[in-house]
């Protein structure tokens, strides 16, 4: 679904991404993990085609730089915070972006029902809670039924209830076969939603781990360290630094 090949990005002297390689299969949920400044958001912005970079990123075989429009038609993006004008009503926001995403009224209705905002159609964005706004962002990202969702710390500004409601929706979408690429600072949601965790440090991939969980991904288990079962990812692993199996080396120090 997504192929990231030797991606490099510099901001002046600062190396934000230093030869990142990553393949994400269709239907897979991948979390980008790492400390601030590791390059997570920069990698997302490169994937969206928002900034120039060296290397190559393709979405469904479409080069994001050469065929940006066609590639972006295959993805929905959810930013950290809703950037919709506060005086816009929920239904107006949906109608506004439905035109661009070639979505019809039926699809708008279905998505509003999915994110449980159908009763809040006439509510202004300013009057929506943080959780409602993020669910609206999710509905907007799903317009046109893109197979890929790109989320940039989508729950960082939500309270516990809002976060839970949002994560439940993401898990539902994941089960429905959406490919998900997201960043997060919260270990619980990374473990809950991700099939694979890509750890970035100083712009490099320093860890690729598969999350092995019980049959029910939502069932609460012990702590983060117990829930993670790091394995060397034979298919994708091209770590620039030695790969360690010990959880403490996988950013869990940061997680905990």
């Amino acid at each position, binding site marked *: 679904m997504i192929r990231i090949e030797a991606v490099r990005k510099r901001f002046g002297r600062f190396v934000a991404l230093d030869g990142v390689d990553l393949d994400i299969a269709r239907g897979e949920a991948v979390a980008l993990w790492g400390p601030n400044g590791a390059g997570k958001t920069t990698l997302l912005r490169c994937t969206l085609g*928002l900034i120039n970079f060296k290397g190559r990123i393709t979405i469904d075989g479409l080069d994001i730089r050469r065929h940006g429009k066609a590639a972006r038609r295959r993805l929905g993006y959810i930013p950290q915070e809703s950037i919709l004008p506060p005086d816009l009503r929920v239904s107006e926001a949906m109608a506004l972006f439905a035109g661009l995403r070639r979505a019809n009224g039926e699809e708008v209705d279905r998505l509003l029902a999915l994110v449980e905002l159908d009763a809040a159609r006439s509510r202004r964005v300013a009057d929506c809670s943080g959780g409602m706004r993020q669910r609206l962002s999710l509905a907007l990202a799903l317009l046109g*039924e893109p197979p890929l969702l790109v989320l940039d710390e989508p729950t960082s500004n939500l309270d516990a209830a809002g976060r839970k409601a949002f994560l439940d929706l993401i898990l539902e979408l994941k089960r429905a076969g959406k490919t998900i690429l997201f960043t997060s600072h919260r270990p619980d949601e990374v473990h809950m939603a991700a099939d694979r965790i890509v750890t970035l440090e100083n712009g490099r991939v320093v860890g690729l781990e598969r999350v092995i969980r019980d049959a029910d991904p939502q069932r609460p288990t012990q702590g983060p360290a117990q829930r993670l079962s790091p394995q060397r990812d034979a298919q994708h692993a091209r770590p620039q630094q030695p790969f360690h199996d010990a959880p403490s080396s996988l950013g869990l120090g940061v997680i905990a």
Partner: protein
Amino acid sequence: MNAAARTAAPSPRALARERWLDPGNLTWLIRKEMRDAIRNRWMILYAIAFTLISLGVASGSRLGTGMDGLAGYGKTAASLINVVMLFVPLMGLTLGVTSLAGERERGSLAYLLAQPVSRGEVYLAKYLGQSISFLAALAIGFGTTAALIALSASPDAHTEAFLWLAGLSGMLGLSMLAIGALIAAAVRRPGSAMGVAIFTWLALAFLSDLGLMGASIAFRLRVQDILALSLLNPGQVFKLASLSGFEASLDVLGPVGLYAQRVLGDSVRAAMLGVMALWILVPLAIGAIVFCRRPI
């Protein structure tokens, strides 16, 4: 169109077509920009401001004549030239900067560019959407004044001159919007971009006249050189074009006006319109290139 069709692998022809401007996307983005203009109320404020200014000029033009009411079309148009040269560039430049820089600051530009649109579409649609809104604000201002002049029983035969000035004011506004958008594309910080826009306005409205006078004395410039330098300021082009529309001699502009009239003859108006069109298209094209190449 179902989801499978929307996300199916596009044909090479479809991919090639996607690189160009998509009329559907362009229409959607223009509507969004116009909606933003109405929501932000700048369009309404500009329309009210321009109406008040032009009405003030129309009534002020009669001061000292001992007559009440508004002046005729010709006199109002002549009096409006300097006001337009001052206010339209200020409105156009600040507006051109605000749209792009404001969206960049709020983060909504990145969100917009993460949609299936090209940067060229976004830039052009922003410009066109703002242009339509700006022209509507000017039309309301000029239209209200024209209607009130017609009702005041003092209209004269110079309606053509008034319409000519209104049209040229629109072109001057489009030119300034294009320059403002170029500034916003080139200068990433909103505060700095606004600073550059204000300085550009000062330079075009005040400093260029002084600079031209100073340079002509210091370097003993020939009249043709002064004319050529004047054309580097869209405000001066507007002045030349509007005066030429009043069927009057350009001698009010001194040797430069007379020289332009002698060299260009009856084509002064067409030539100035051409230069004004260049002042719209060139900054617009440069701005689009800069916007497409620079990080947001």
